[in-house]
């Protein structure tokens, strides 16, 4: 369960949003919409721990993680522009979190193969990430986040910039992946239809501010 309690976030010493609260139950998928520049991405980054908050608290499974560094929170974040590591192959990107945990090579190989199959990219493990299409890169970014077994998955406009056919396919695949695994998810999008298609609940950012 993720609970954001009355957080205030500042940008260049000015409040971006004040007193924002949000609760997501375990296994729930919540979509967050809002105008460009309203702070949706910043909210995700604060929850993930890569951006700091001015006041308030963030709880994960009833434990205060506000001051916990990002690498200890086990919150997955799929970035808007994927942020695949350019010096690593597809397989190495996906295996990254497993290598940090010193998982053995055989298990890593199996988990990477499973993840690639899950996102429909079988046999691409050795591909250079700079040669991936937009849809492929997105799938790798999702696979990389899922393999880390996050307690909460944050998706920052994951389907942004894809053509309508690919958008529809990935939306369906992503929805199935999240539901099948019961992952607590916060999905940010500016597309209302996408939000309604994937989420149990939909909020606009300003609704969360008291």
């Amino acid at each position, binding site marked *: 369960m993720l609970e954001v309690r009355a957080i205030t976030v500042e940008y260049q010493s000015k409040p971006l949003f004040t007193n924002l609260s949000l609760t997501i139950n375990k296994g729930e998928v919540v979509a967050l919409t809002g105008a460009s520049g309203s702070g949706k991405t910043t909210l995700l980054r604060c929850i993930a721990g890569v951006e700091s908050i001015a006041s308030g608290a963030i709880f994960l499974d009833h434990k205060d993680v506000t001051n916990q560094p990002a*690498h200890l929170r086990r919150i997955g974040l799929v*970035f808007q522009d994927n942020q695949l590591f350019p010096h690593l192959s597809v397989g190495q990107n996906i295996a*990254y979190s497993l290598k940090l945990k010193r998982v053995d090579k055989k298990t890593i190989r199996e988990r990477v193969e499973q993840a690639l199959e899950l996102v429909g990219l079988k046999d691409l493990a050795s591909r250079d990430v700079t040669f991936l299409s937009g849809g492929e890169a997105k799938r790798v970014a999702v696979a990389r986040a899922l393999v880390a077994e996050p307690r909460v998955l944050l998706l920052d406009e994951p389907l942004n910039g894809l053509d309508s056919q690919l958008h529809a396919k990935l939306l369906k695949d992503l929805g199935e992946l999240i539901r099948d695994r019961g992952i607590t998810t916060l999905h940010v999008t500016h597309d209302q239809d996408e939000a309604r298609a994937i989420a149990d609940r939909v909020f606009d950012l300003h609704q969360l501010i008291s």
Partner: protein
Amino acid sequence: MSQARTKYSNTAKLLTVLPTIFVLVFVIAPVANIFGKTFRDVSLSLLRSGTIHEIIWFTTWQALVSTVIALALAAPVAFCVANFRFYGQRLVTSLTGIPFILPSIVVGVAFLGVLPSTLHRTAFALILAHAYFNFGFAARMIGNRWLQIHPYLDDAARTLGASPSRLFSTITLPILQRSILNTSLIVFTLCFTSYGVVRMLGGPSRSTIETEIFFRAMQLGDVSGAMLLSVVQILIIGSLFVVSTRFGSRDSRRASAPTISRQRRIDSTAKRFVVGLASLGAIGFTTAPLLAILIRSLRTSAGFTLEGWRSVATSTDLWRGLSTSFVYALGTLAIAVLLAIFASTATVFDERTAAFISVLTSLPIVVSSVSIGLGVLVTFDTPPIDWRGSQLMLPLAHAMIALPLAVRMITPVLQSIPAPLRQASSVLGANTWQTWRNIDLPIVRRSLVSAAAISAAVSLGEFGASSFLVRQNNETLPILISRLLSRPGDILQTQAFALSMILVVFSVALIFLIDTFDDFTPTNRAASDA
């Protein structure tokens, strides 16, 4: 090939003519002449000499150690500049760039002022001076590459469980690896071919290949031996250059676009301490030798005196040296910048031409300044091409040395102009020249100023080629400084330090000019990202 592409390809080829002739006549021909005479007439027995083996070994290991120390000093500066936004950042960046632009002889003189006399003429002094000379350059190269790493890559690693140390070892260092290697190779090459520093601090027992070439040619009259050593050095540097070029091209393919600045405000005491320590250390290390020059210009064994400065101000010889240096600097910048504009513009029009220009303008880097001087001396020594005494030879030689730097300052800016911008100009009726004048030139103007500044700095401080080519009536400042220091006498020493201080002041002014106008310095990039 389409008509448009043919037209651009022909324009590119035309633009390469002048730079090609220049490099052909003043670099390739002299080097080919050295190689030809060496393999035809020179005995290779010199290479079996134990003394020469020692010189080659010393040249190599001191360059290696200097490189390691320079990079170790550069690392904290690069880290701070790439990752934090702090008060005085621009000062740190500019100040640490000063040593690299200082004339090598001034660096040697500075360490004569800083170190006790017991440490003069030691390997320690040489290595320290080399590290001083190059650490700012290394910090810029690595810092610039570090700045290109998207900050969200760090965040991605953190959300996947990477602690700060694992983030550095698994993401940052692998991405920086090629830049570090490339920088190391360049610094090694510079330390390997160092001349002014070795002349000042090395003494007879600490010769490198570069000083040995000069010594054999100009003091022993053994031009054959000098040419042989020159060939050996060119072959070694050429091999290193091939390696560094291959690593450099692979690195540029991997570089991510710097869309968001990774420089963050300092938000903890620990970070403030680290940044403060690195900054103050860098500033202290940079300025201490420069202060030593100033102090030594005002002090003799009898105490403080203005006599050194007074004689600089009143001596006709010294004023002639000053004015000669500045005239040559102006000539150098005019030649180098003009050729660099032609060469850089050619790279925009055609990819094959770009590759050719890259190789062409790298050739002067492969040949050291002393070898250029020697090459010119042995090539243009017979009428009607006896140009050894010509006043033009020095600015031409200096322009050869400055050309690679000038091209590398202008080319990235020209290549960053999106093709559609020029196409938009064309469809509005502008021909190639009008497009260049109205689109390219305003964008590249700042880099032209930087290129001119660096060409002037190279000329003002050039010592290697000048040692071969100056005559009594056209001595440059570095040659004058060397002459004054080689004579006993306190007042002469203070004059040498005073002249060195003049070069320092101009170098400092030039580095601030370059930093103001160069579009690719870390602070300017961060400012444009913000």
